[in-house]
């Protein structure tokens, strides 16, 4: 583990993150206790006397998924607690001259921040349940999707139930600012879905290409990055951090979230069904143009017609996939994701260096290290 020294703290410009660390970092050890409380806590928040409803609402909490969102919230909480938490000196050690030089704080996670991590995961789960219906899914995380398992209506209603319970828990945090942030996340998620309903530009031109990229980035923010960004931001708010740190947390979440979605879109092209746990090329089959095909469009104008027609013709999906593979569409997308992660590394430099901050770097790096 990297040693936390005062000189490191006083030089926020010093990049202490080392690439070799990312491969061996066991960052979950830092938040192991809290992470273990996320799923059980969520199950308690979703408790109900009606067995059917309990079964449905717990459907996506048993197969835990990656728990990336709660991990980020918890790590951000721990990392930012060193800015203004109970171990943070007010005057600095040069005046204190304490006789306990070995003491290194690893930071804390407040109960409210743990609850925030649970709420974040609940909102995410609710959105998955609705997505299953909207996307007419069949498989998720290697199991039948919720709409297949218990029907469309129940999927939607269960999603509402989880949203209701999450919002109730949010109210009990008694922080109007965080409540408002999460309310906007819900609105963002919906808006993101509507953006995917239809193309608004139907010409096959360079202008249209640029427009589609903008559209794609906005949709990516609304559907993926918004929740991650605002939950990180909220963690810093609950930790009573300075505006600078709160903004840094928000930006970090946004960059990591965007990169995450970009890599997800790459995997949709490069993975076989089994590894993914869901059907590959789902995006093309839904008529959605993601980054790889948008990059490939620059080289193959004929992709433009397919994008505009939302890959309607039966041969489109296969053709598009082949064209994408013959270009550097995948590589361009990965590079784009890596650019975002680079920004993520930079933006949290203002937070004191610590194992928790190192872990945030590691998580960010892991996003673009996914095998594709």
């Amino acid at each position, binding site marked *: 583990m990297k040693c936390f020294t005062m000189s490191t703290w006083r030089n926020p410009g010093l990049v202490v993150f080392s690439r070799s660390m990312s491969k061996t970092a066991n960052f979950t050890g830092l938040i192991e206790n809290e992470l273990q409380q996320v799923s059980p806590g969520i199950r308690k928040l979703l408790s109900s006397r009606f067995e059917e409803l309990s079964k449905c609402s717990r459907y996506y909490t048993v197969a835990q998924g990656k728990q990336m969102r709660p991990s980020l919230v918890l790590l951000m909480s721990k990392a930012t607690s060193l800015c203004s938490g109970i171990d943070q000196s007010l005057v600095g050690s040069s005046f204190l001259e304490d006789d306990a030089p070995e003491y290194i704080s690893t930071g804390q996670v407040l109960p409210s921040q743990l609850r925030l991590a649970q709420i974040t995961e609940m909102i995410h789960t609710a959105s998955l349940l609705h997505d299953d219906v909207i996307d007419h899914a069949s498989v998720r995380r290697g199991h039948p999707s919720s709409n297949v398992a218990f029907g*469309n209506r129940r999927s939607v209603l269960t999603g*509402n139930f989880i949203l209701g319970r999450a*919002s109730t828990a949010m109210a009990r945090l008694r922080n109007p600012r965080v409540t408002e942030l999460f309310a906007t996340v819900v609105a963002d998620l919906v808006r993101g879905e509507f953006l995917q309903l239809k193309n608004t530009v139907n010409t096959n031109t360079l202008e249209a290409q640029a427009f589609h990229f903008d559209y794609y980035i906005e949709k990516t923010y609304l559907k993926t990055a918004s929740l991650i960004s605002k939950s990180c931001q909220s963690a810093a708010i609950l930790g009573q951090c300075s505006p600078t740190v709160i903004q840094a947390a928000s930006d970090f979440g946004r960059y990591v979230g965007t990169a995450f979605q970009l890599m997800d879109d790459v995997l949709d092209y490069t993975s076989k069904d089994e590894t993914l746990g869901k059907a590959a090329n789902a995006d093309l089959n839904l008529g959605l143009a993601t980054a790889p095909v948008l990059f490939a469009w620059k080289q193959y104008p004929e992709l433009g017609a397919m994008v505009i027609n939302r890959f309607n013709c039966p041969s489109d999906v296969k053709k598009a996939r082949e064209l994408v593979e013959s270009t550097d569409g995948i590589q361009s997308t990965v590079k784009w994701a890596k650019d975002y992660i680079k920004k993520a590394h930079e933006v949290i430099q203002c937070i004191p260096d610590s194992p928790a901050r190192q872990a945030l770097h590691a998580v960010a790096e892991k996003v673009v290290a996914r095998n594709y």
Partner: protein
Amino acid sequence: MGLPLHILRNPSLISSYFSVNKSSSWASVLLKAVGVLSRDSRWHADLLNVLTEEMESLNKQLNAWTGNNPLLDRITEPYRRSNTQFFHPLLVLLMSRASRIEGDTSQQMFQRYKQLSRVTELIHAANLIHINIREDQSTEELKLATLVGDYLLGKASVDLSHLESSAVTELMASVIANLVEGHFMKPKSHANSQSERMLLLQSAFLPAKACLSASILNNASAYMNKACFTYGRYLGLSMHVAHEDLSESIEDKTKKKELLNGYRKNAKDALTVFPDVEAKQALREIAERISIA
């Protein structure tokens, strides 16, 4: 039939409505209540009018985003055709007035009443749209129905957060969960108490918690809060029992009538603590007018 929308949009038509229609019909009772509100100050009647306009503009927004999809009307029909359209907002506004502590209310307060009533209507509409999702619908219809309901819930969440009342957020968020619980609950006709739980979840908690929220926004006393909640609760129960389609579990018609009378009485009794005579009268008449279809 519920509140005639064209009259809500033009409250000055209320008196001419009464010259033509029987004053004891459900719509009339509701309109009378609207009249009570508009006499209070011109803000209140305007609030309902503005609310109908706001809902209409949401509809326009949805049309814009879906390219005027013809399925949109079919999806929103369970809400537009219901006889409870704008009913809960009317209750909220009456309760806002009934639970008000002495003194003039600022325009800001009226805006908060309207925001709360809008939240209530949005949650109500979203629920109707979502519970009417059927498995035999086309993928497109399923998708749209889900999205439209979500749009309304998203708006409700944002509106709630703008009220900046953690208590109201807690209450109205729990209603979203209650409505789902009520739907999942299988009716068991042999266990009466379980039956009532289902009625509460499906039909009573929404008006009860909305009425209570209005009282909370007024910083009213605990006594008043309880009265508002109780009235809303029993009014919701009455309406559920009276509405024939919903009450399959209560077979015996005499039993049904007994139950309804009991609920109606409890609702009216809760009103005794309200000092405002006009609002009290309107609320009493609403409770009295609920009868088995």
